[in-house]
Each structure stands twice: as structure tokens, then as C-alpha cells.
């Protein structure tokens, strides 16, 4: 008995230490990012969000990259949210059992494809396809980035939304059907609204993936550090927070390095906030059905 208790305790401490190590690592990374980016924030203050990045002038303000990340992410979500939600509703509510058992693992497999493969396909196929289709000078554009990221975010959105929809208790749906609502009305008025916090979590996680993605984006977005005129010209090439880090970190010196770290800090804050919000939303849906 005593031995067993010792064993239990030992295992508990080991796991505690492992968990503590991962927390420590996260804080260490955060501390390192902030300390390395501090000189850039001190130099520029809030003007670091202006759009002006030029080695010749030794000016490194990250506004263009932040703008690029925003526009590419918005574009990706415009593509991924409707497709993803439709896919999730089909998968959880409409698809017959055998279709679902085939489709779900395939969609999840899509999430496992390395991002460089998406980037490679984007650079060789998508970019070449966009040029004649839209009569463009260049295929490398915000649009190409948004398309690639939209596709990459799809499996996450579908898979997590599907889980959320599946978690909606059966009696709710049956009650709705029993009072004469059609299948579509039930989905629209009962199932979907009930699962909304889980679905929001799915969308936010998909967005997080889009924002943090580097390899695929840097191959298709063009990496030009500017805000195009007009700014929402999605056929223009641009840069994102991740692509500029990938492109320039290798040979950067001095202030440029600090500014690249500042890009990292901003990414960390955005993605970190999103992951916290999505966790809160997920917890809420779990409480809704289990606690109450």
C-alpha cells in the first residue's frame, strides 16, 4: 500500500515537473521575445506601426506586414468560414453514416499535410493559374495567400465545428422535430445556435493557424514590404508578419533584428489571445451540456 502511494506520488511529481517545464518554456520564450524587441519599441514607440521598411534608410517599421497579415487572414476567413461551416453541418447533420466515416478522416488528414507542401503547390500551381485567370501581371498576391491559408484553415474549422455540432444533445433536436420543424429548420434554429460557442472556437483556431502560418505564405505572397494603393487591392503582392521574419531574420543586424522580434511579439500576442478566447468558448459549450 505504502509503495503504491509512493509510486503514485512520484508519478504525480514527474508529471507536475513536466507541465511546469512547458509553462516555464512558454514564459521564457515570451520574456526573450519581449527583451529582444524592446529596443525597436523604444526607438519607434507607436510609430512602429507605420509602413516604412528600408535597409538603405535603416528604417524598420512593421505596419505593412501587420496590414498584410490582417488582409490575408480576413481573406482566408471569407473563404474558409462559409465552406468550413457548410462542411461541418453536412458532416454532422446530413451525411449518412458511411459517408461520414470516410470523409471525416480524410478532412483531418488535410490538416496533417506539411505547410511547405501547400506552399509549393501554391507557388507552382495556384500562382501560375491566377495570372491568366484574372489577367494579372503577377500571381503572387494577397489573394494567393488568402486562398492557400483558407484551404489550410478548412480542416480545423470543419473538424472542431463538427465536434461542437455533434455535442448538441439529441433530445433538443428531437424535440424540435417533434413539434413539426423540418430538418433544415432544426439545424438553423436549434442545433447551430446551441453549438455557436464551439463553432466560434473553431473559427478562431482556424484564424490562429492562418495568422501564424509562415512557409506557405512566404512562397505565394510576394514579400514586398508595402501597403498597396488602393490598400484593399487583393491582387497586389505584399508581406505578412511571418513572411518578413522568414525572409530577413537570417541576415538581419541591429535594429532590423529588434524589429523582426517585434513582429514576433505582435504575432505572439494575437495568436495567444485567440487561443485563450477559443479555450474559454470551448469550456462554455462543455459546461452548457454537462454542468447544466
Amino acid at each position, binding site marked *: 500500500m505504502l509503495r503504491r502511494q509512493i509510486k503514485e506520488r512520484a508519478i504525480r511529481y514527474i508529471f507536475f515537473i513536466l507541465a511546469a517545464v512547458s509553462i516555464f518554456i512558454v514564459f521564457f520564450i515570451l520574456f526573450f521575445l519581449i527583451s529582444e524587441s524592446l529596443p525597436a519599441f523604444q526607438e519607434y514607440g507607436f510609430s512602429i506601426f507605420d509602413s516604412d521598411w528600408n535597409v538603405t534608410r535603416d528604417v524598420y517599421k512593421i505596419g505593412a506586414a501587420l496590414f498584410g497579415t490582417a488582409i490575408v487572414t480576413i481573406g482566408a476567413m471569407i473563404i474558409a468560414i462559409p465552406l468550413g461551416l457548410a462542411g461541418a453541418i453536412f458532416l454532422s447533420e446530413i451525411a449518412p453514416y458511411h459517408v461520414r466515416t470516410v470523409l471525416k478522416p480524410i478532412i483531418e488528414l488535410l490538416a496533417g499535410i506539411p505547410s511547405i507542401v501547400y506552399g509549393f503547390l501554391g507557388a507552382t500551381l495556384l500562382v501560375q493559374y491566377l495570372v491568366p485567370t484574372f489577367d494579372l501581371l503577377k500571381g*503572387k498576391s494577397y489573394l494567393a495567400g488568402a486562398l492557400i491559408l483558407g484551404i489550410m484553415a478548412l480542416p480545423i474549422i470543419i473538424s472542431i465545428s463538427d465536434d461542437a455540432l455533434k455535442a448538441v444533445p439529441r433530445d433538443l433536436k428531437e424535440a424540435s422535430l417533434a413539434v413539426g420543424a423540418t430538418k433544415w429548420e432544426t439545424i438553423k434554429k436549434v442545433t447551430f445556435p446551441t453549438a455557436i460557442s464551439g463553432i466560434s472556437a473553431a473559427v478562431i483556431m482556424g484564424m490562429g493557424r492562418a495568422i501564424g502560418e509562415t512557409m506557405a505564405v512566404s512562397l505565394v505572397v510576394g*514579400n*514586398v514590404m508595402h501597403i498597396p494603393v488602393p490598400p484593399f487591392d487583393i491582387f497586389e*503582392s505584399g508581406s505578412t508578419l511571418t513572411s518578413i521574419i522568414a*525572409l530577413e531574420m537570417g541576415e538581419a543586424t541591429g535594429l532590423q533584428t529588434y524589429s523582426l522580434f517585434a513582429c514576433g511579439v505582435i504575432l505572439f500576442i494575437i495568436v495567444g489571445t485567440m487561443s485563450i478566447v477559443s479555450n474559454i468558448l470551448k469550456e462554455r459549450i462543455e459546461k452548457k451540456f454537462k454542468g447544466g
Partner: protein
Amino acid sequence: MGGFGESLMVEVKNKKIGKTMLAILIAITFGASIFSGCVEEEGTITISIKGSSTVLPIAEICAEEYMKLNDNILITVAGGGSSVGIKSVANGEVDIGDASRAAKASDVENIKGVELSNLVDNVIAYDGIAVVVSPYIKNNNVTDLTMEQIYMIYTGEISYWSEVGGPDLEIYINDRASTSGTRATFVELIENSSGYTLEDFEEDGGTLAVDDVHQENSQVVSAVSLNQNAIGYAGLGYVNEETCPAIKVDGVLPSTTTVKEGDYPISRSLHMYTLGQPTGTVKDFIDYVKSDEGQDIVEEEGFIRL
């Protein structure tokens, strides 16, 4: 229960092994540090090098290789730019000043007792950048551009090939990441008819009208071969007559010969300046850079050997 006892034994054994390993590691580390300490105390010769970021990779790798060949020599290599390199060597701060341009009288005017003639110019390599276009553009009458035309293309004043005698197509402009040494050379040397360079244009707040920014020479070459509207620039070694041909600049086609002779305009020599004739180890190191081994490194780094 027995299983737990066994695993505890194993654990203890592992701990013992771990301790022995640790002891050995510590011994090795200590031994090594004492050993290296000895060497340093017994009079290491130090050479310091500073200057151009273009020459930096050559200097760094040559220094590494040279230190492998010579145990008691320590070479420190730093960047900072050509001006810093020339000033630092002139005021005696470093032994060798790297520069990707020739030293000017203005570089040394504030340094007492040093004339431009005191600096000895050791040319260690040449650097030439080819302007490349898609085969389609080259086959359609654009075989020669002036510096001014290239300047106007990159600043966005010319945006159609028809403006330089080619087909009625928009120009797809390829550039390198701003950290690239090739890019630094390109913007420094491309100038309009009044001698105003792309670098001046950027310094005065201009932004180049580029469409695509690449990390490597090879990516420029592949982008140019894939897009028939494309123009770009790359190190001479990356030119491919069939997929990514070079064009003449001011009437001169880039080649090892035209770069060495100084005929090709987007070229320059790379220098290692010393204060007075180099002597002793410094001379030996510069000779190493100029030797076949050193020149192999020069070529590997994408420059043209002497």
C-alpha cells in the same frame, strides 16, 4: 509491486551511469578549457577585420579555414560597412578594412597623419551582377538596356516593355530581400544619367516599384524563367542562356572578362585595405585569401575570382 522494485534498481543504476558520464563530461570540458587557455596565454596572434557586409562572408569563411590551418592565430571578423572598414583600418583600430568600393580621400580626411596613399589596396575578388529577363522578352527585341532605363524600371517610371523597345507587356519586377548583399550592390550601382543611384532614391524616401521579393539568387532565376514579363538581377553564375538570359547593360554583356576589365557597369572589385604594406601574419592571411584555396571560397560565395 515487484515490478516497482526492479524499476527502482534500474533507476539507481541509471543514476550511477549518469554520474559517471557527467564526471567524464566535466573532465573533458575542464581539460579542454585548460588546454585552450594554455594556448591563448602562450601568445596568440590576433588579426582584426572589419568592414563591408559584402566582403563579410568571404572574410569569415577564409578566417575560419585559415584558423584551422594555423593553431595560434585568432581572427575576429566584423561587419559595419565599407566606410567603417576604411576608417577603422586608417586609424589603426583594425588590421584589415574590408570595402566593396575604392577608398576616397574623404574617408581619411579626419584622421591625423594618414593620407589616402598610406592605405594599401588589396583586391581579393570581383563582383558582377547580371540583369536577367525572360527568354520571351530577350527574343522580342530587348537585348540591351541602359543604366538609366534599368533605374527607371526599378523606380516605376517605366512600367511597360514597349517603352524600352519590347512587346506591349507590363514589366514584372523581381527584387531581393533587403538584407541581400547582391541587392546592396545593385541599388548602389544602378544610376540615372545624372548619377543619382537607386540607393540615393531609397535614402530620399523612395520605394522601389517591385512586384516580387526573393531570398536567394536561385529564386529570382526561377521566377524570371516562369514569367514572360519578368526582369530581375542575379550573380553572374546564375545566368542561364535558355531559361533566364542576361542582357547587355550600356552595350556590354556581363562575363568574367568584362567584369574583371571593369567594362561591365554593374561590377566592382572587393578590397581588403591595410595601413601600409601588409606584413607578417596579416600579409600571410591576405595571401591565403588570394591563393587558390581562398579563391575557391570566393567563388563558392558567388563572387568572381581574381
